[in-house]
């Protein structure tokens, strides 16, 4: 874990805590601020969408106007002024780039700075990346290689154009537009996101990855991701996020829908490092995200792994609907909050089919004056014979002024179903820190070491490169939390 030491020094040398806090100066094309039907028509027209898509957006918008803000999460913030947000911001470009060579070099530089050189990635076989910059997907690498096996990996705007039958069939099938206020807003104004289709029997030959970045000021990012794994297929998908450091709060209301058909498996990993606000809680992203997977077919499996270290407020519950018999849902989560961050996160496991099983491992670390809540629902439906759930929920506190809360909801309508829930709350002990420092390890590195140990079960679920990144993030996020 020498990496954590290295990173901490790197960050120190940068002289600031949030190393992704810069912004790129690009000529942008934006829609006027605010939200009304004209804006939605503007977005839809910009994207040259078919009528059915526009109709769906408008239906969502009209419904959104009637919906109350969800008020049950343990987070506090002033009411959002939805009219003070830009809903469309895109790097100006006369024509769509056909290859990476045509993409604005400044944009490519930005991604390189973020540690994802798209060009290199295209050359060294590794990860296929779809990069979303503010509202628009700018580059999808590795297209050819994926096409050979029939995998479709493109921006959702392209999918609307080129694969309308798939989009029409599945869009909103897991997260209906009326699901909740944030998801409903997303349905009305989503500007881009990724689309993945894995054909029957195909094991996707590489990890697919999206990188999101909010660059423009006062811009909301509303991306929408749709992943469909056809019968017997497999895909591992990675998502990373950063945003520049700004004083205003920025809204991020994304929707991710996953559909796994018979015997298919989807592994979805997120490292979320949106700007968390400064030490006084100024600025930062409001991360209001709806992620849900449907295990449609028998023996299908959906696994969510998340490392949430950023955002001023996180409101996020990646869930699984276990409809197919013998299907499996997993949720592995690390959430770290420091300073004045607030996180209300967890999962929902809805067991509908027979012999379905789910596993929830949640590790919450609170430091500074932050507050964190694990909120998890396990529901065993009437027909979920022999369904099983195991939940383990551990909280670690650093310092005296933070909070950790665990709110499990368990509902069972089937007598043969079994639900297990274990929860612990602990503190980093002075003993552990002294033991580490006596061995020569600095105090902040010691905290990172102990916390990484605490999170190990979850870190192990991440693909290799992501795991290293996540370990570093743990160290960075907790900087200044001791002493």
């Amino acid at each position, binding site marked *: *874990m020498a990496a954590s030491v290295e990173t901490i020094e790197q960050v120190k040398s940068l002289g600031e805590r949030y190393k992704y806090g810069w912004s790129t100066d690009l000529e942008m094309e934006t829609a006027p601020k605010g939200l009304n039907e004209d804006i939605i028509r503007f977005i839809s027209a910009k994207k040259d969408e078919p009528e059915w898509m526009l109709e769906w957006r408008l239906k969502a918008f009209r419904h959104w106007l009637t919906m109350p803000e969800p008020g049950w999460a343990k987070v506090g913030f002033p009411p959002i002024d939805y009219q003070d947000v830009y809903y469309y911001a895109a790097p100006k470009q006369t024509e769509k780039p056909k290859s990476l060579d045509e993409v604005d070099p400044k944009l490519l530089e930005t991604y390189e700075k973020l540690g994802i050189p798209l060009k290199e990635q295209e050359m060294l076989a590794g990860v296929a990346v779809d990069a979303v910059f503010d509202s628009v997907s700018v580059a999808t690498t590795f297209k050819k290689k994926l096409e050979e096996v029939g995998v479709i990996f493109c921006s959702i705007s392209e999918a609307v154009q080129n694969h309308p039958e798939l989009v029409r069939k599945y869009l909103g099938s897991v997260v209906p537009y009326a699901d909740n206020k944030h998801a409903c807003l997303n349905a009305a104004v989503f500007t881009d996101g990724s689309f993945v289709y894995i054909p029957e029997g195909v094991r996707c030959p590489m990890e697919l990855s999206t990188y999101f970045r909010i660059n423009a000021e006062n811009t909301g990012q509303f991306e929408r991701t749709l992943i469909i794994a056809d019968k017997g297929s497999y895909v591992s998908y990675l998502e990373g996020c950063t945003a520049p450091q700004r004083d205003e709060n920025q809204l991020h209301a994304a929707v991710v829908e996953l559909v796994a058909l018979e015997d298919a498996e989807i592994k979805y990993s997120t490292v979320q490092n949106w700007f968390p606000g400064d030490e006084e809680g100024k600025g930062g992203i409001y991360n209001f995200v709806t992620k849900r997977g449907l295990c449609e077919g028998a023996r299908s499996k959906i696994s969510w792994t998340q490392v949430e270290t950023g955002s001023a407020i996180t409101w996020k519950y990646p869930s699984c609907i276990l409809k197919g018999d013998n299907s499996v849902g997993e949720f592995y989560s690390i959430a770290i909050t420091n300073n004045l961050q607030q996180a209300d996160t967890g999962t929902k496991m809805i067991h509908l089919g027979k012999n379905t099983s789910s596993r929830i491992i949640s590790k919450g670390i609170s430091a500074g004056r932050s507050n964190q809540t694990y909120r998890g629902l396990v529901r065993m439906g009437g027909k979920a014979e022999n369904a099983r759930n195991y939940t383990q929920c551990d909280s670690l506190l650093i310092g005296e002024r933070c909070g950790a809360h665990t709110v499990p909801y368990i509902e069972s309508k089937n007598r043969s179903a079994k639900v297990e829930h274990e929860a612990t709350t602990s503190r980093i002990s002075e003993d552990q820190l002294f033991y580490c*420092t006596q061995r020569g390890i600095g105090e902040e590195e010691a905290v990172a070491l102990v916390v990484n140990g605490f999170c190990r079960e979850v870190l192990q679920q991440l693909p290799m490169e992501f795991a290293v990144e996540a370990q570093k993030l743990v160290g960075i996020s907790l900087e200044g939390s001791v002493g």
Partner: protein
Amino acid sequence: MLEINNLHATVDGAEILKGIDLTIRAGEVHAIMGPNGSGKSTLSYVLAGRDGYEVTEGSVTFNGKDLLEMPTEERAGEGVFLAFQYPVEIPGVPNTTFLKEAVNAVRKYRGEPELDAMEFVKHLRAKAKELGMNPEFLKRAVNAGFSGGEKKRNEMLQMAMLEPSLCLLDETDSGLDIDALKAVSEAINAMRSPERAMLVITHYQRLLTYVVPDHVHVLSKGRIVRSGGPELAQELEEKGYGESIEAA
């Protein structure tokens, strides 16, 4: 190497050390004996730099430097090692990872290049073997679920890997059966060298039959009340602490 002058220290406002004077030269092994509550462990914590142990008077010089000025990790970098009486568990952190982090932190402090992973693991395996440790222990989380004897062996492994110049052994013999005691004693003896000093804190004489000290001191109520050669340990074993303490 180590010079302690008139050291006074308090814990939670209560004075535990009341004027310790002690000089340890390179190559020497000193034993500190004494009844419970005499301040033995406090002395080791003060030297290692544990939070909450406040020095109110006196000085400690280590290789010419003011030890008390340094934060804990720098003392470790300078070569101070404390073998804990109760080694701490760190769940989820593999022993190997922990040791690598520690060894490289100390090497960095000393201006030496960090060891690469392969080199490190090879070195670690060899040391573990010398100590008769099952290599499986290297993969397990630091001290988590280890037996008393395993934890103490693990302390010895860390000591061997970090190659300190001053070893503080705080009741390393406590909770050991006779086989483990022998193994741990051998590990300590293997570390004895003309460049290295040791301060062995113990309750009983039995460790000192295996690790024969050059000097023995009796600590009582925060002061050293008697000093002598290895024969003093034997005498204490036979007569108990009462006489020495009363004589002071």
